[in-house]
Each structure stands twice: as C-alpha cells, then as structure tokens.
C-alpha cells in the first residue's frame, strides 16, 4: 500500500517526483531493496562526521511495540500500526492512512558503532542516532 502523504501538492515537487520515478525505472542497476518512495514509515537519513542519523516518520504507533535492530550493518525498523475502527454504520469517505505491519531496512556505513545507538520517539517521529567509531573520525594533523 502506498503511503500517500508523501505526494507533495506543489506542482514542481510533483514533477520532481515523476522525474525521480522515471530515473528509477531507467536505472539499470537499482538498489536490491528496490524503490521505497512512498513506504511507511517514510525515512530521512543524514550523516555527520560523528554519527549517522535516521528519522522514521511513523505517526500513531506505540513506541514500545516498535522493534529497532542493527545486525550485520543493517538497520531494521519493524512494527505494526493498528487501523482505526470507524463507528458502526459509518461511511468511509477517504481511506489513505497506512495500517498493518511494516518493516523497513537501511544499510549503514561500515564505521558505525551499533552498541552505542540511541532511539527516541517524539511527535510521531522515531529518531535513531548511531555514532561512528572514533578511529575513523576526521583528525587534524599538525605540521611540525
């Protein structure tokens, strides 16, 4: 099921999405994990010299029931979002929100320290911060 919240209303953004989708189709060697644009939860990933930051936009889930795991350099976020039950004899006019089980997988860089990862859930966003090992952090070398 497509998570339609990601469809930007803006025409330029929409064209950008189409272009990216077209590029994906033309890409002869796509990622083995496919094209996840539109999946639940939506993910943003960023890096700093000290850490890798993963943001999973997972509104309406119980954080205690979300499973976050790092194994063999791969981060997995899995859980379930229960559907809201409409009142009896209710008409369903729009039904776009994701419901059911989800699982998303991200490859992490080699230099992360999985044991020091920390996860927080706030305003429907799961933020996972994974520090990089110190040895690989940039160091300034003094010239004598």
């Amino acid at each position, binding site marked *: 099921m497509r998570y339609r*919240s990601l469809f*930007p209303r*803006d025409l330029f953004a929409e064209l950008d999405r189409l272009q990216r989708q077209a590029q994906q189709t033309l890409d002869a060697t796509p990622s083995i994990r496919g094209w996840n644009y539109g999946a639940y939860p939506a993910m943003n*990933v*960023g890096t700093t010299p000290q850490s890798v930051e993963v943001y999973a*936009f997972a509104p309406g889930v119980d954080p205690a029931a979300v499973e976050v795991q790092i194994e063999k350099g791969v981060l997995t976020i899995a859980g379930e979002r229960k559907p809201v039950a409409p009142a009896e004899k209710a*008409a*369903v006019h729009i039904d776009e929100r994701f419901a059911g089980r989800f699982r998303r997988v991200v490859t992490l860089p080699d230099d992360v320290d999985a044991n020091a990862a920390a996860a927080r859930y706030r305003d*429907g966003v799961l933020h996972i911060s994974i520090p990089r090992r110190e040895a690989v952090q940039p160091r300034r070398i003094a010239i004598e």
Partner: protein
Amino acid sequence: MSEQDKAVARSAETRADEAALTPAVDVFEDAGGITLYADLPGVPKDKLSLQVEAETLTIEGEIVQELPEGMEATHAEIALPRYRRVFTLSKELDTEKVSARFDKGVLELRIPKAEHLQPRRIEVKVE
C-alpha cells in the same frame, strides 16, 4: 526584467514558499457527524494550525526537528518542512463545535452535524 517576467518570478517564489506535503487522511461519517484522522509526523502541538473559515477547513503543520549541526542529508523522503491540506465542508456541519486531539503525530478531528439536522428516520410508505 519586464513586468511579466517579474510576475512570473514572484509567483514561482510564493509557490516555493508554500510548497507543502499532503498528509494522508481518513474520513468517516456517521449519523452524528464526521471524524477525520490526519498523519502529521514531526509536527509539535504548537506548530499545528486548524482553521475553519466559511466552509473551508485548513489543516497546516510545520515539521520541527533537531538536526545535529553539520548534518548532510543522504536520503530524504520527507523533503519539505510542512504539511497542508484543505477541505470544503458542507453546510449541515456545525463548525462551531469542532473538537480536536493531537497525539504522536496523528490528528483526530470531530465535526458534528448541526443539532436541528440530527438524524430522523424517514418512513417509506409502500402503497
């Protein structure tokens, strides 16, 4: 730059300013009114704005996130910092009595139908 070019540039600018994600919603209707759920992850309570004007309902929210200094985005599916969605309401809804709840990025909105329009069973006579 001609006047027309300026106007084009200006409209492109406002468009970029206003570009927003469309949040996913569920809308249910029962005899007493309409219930709407909207997914607005990343929006804190104070950055959520609900507006009812005439017969238009506007839901807007700004995403607030703590980003570590010097972070470089390597993959972004949520690429805009705000959500917006506008609905046209119908006149039997009582916009004075809208109630809202916002928890874990999910908005729950209840718009009851006006009192004098509460359901009445209509007898169908067969002759």
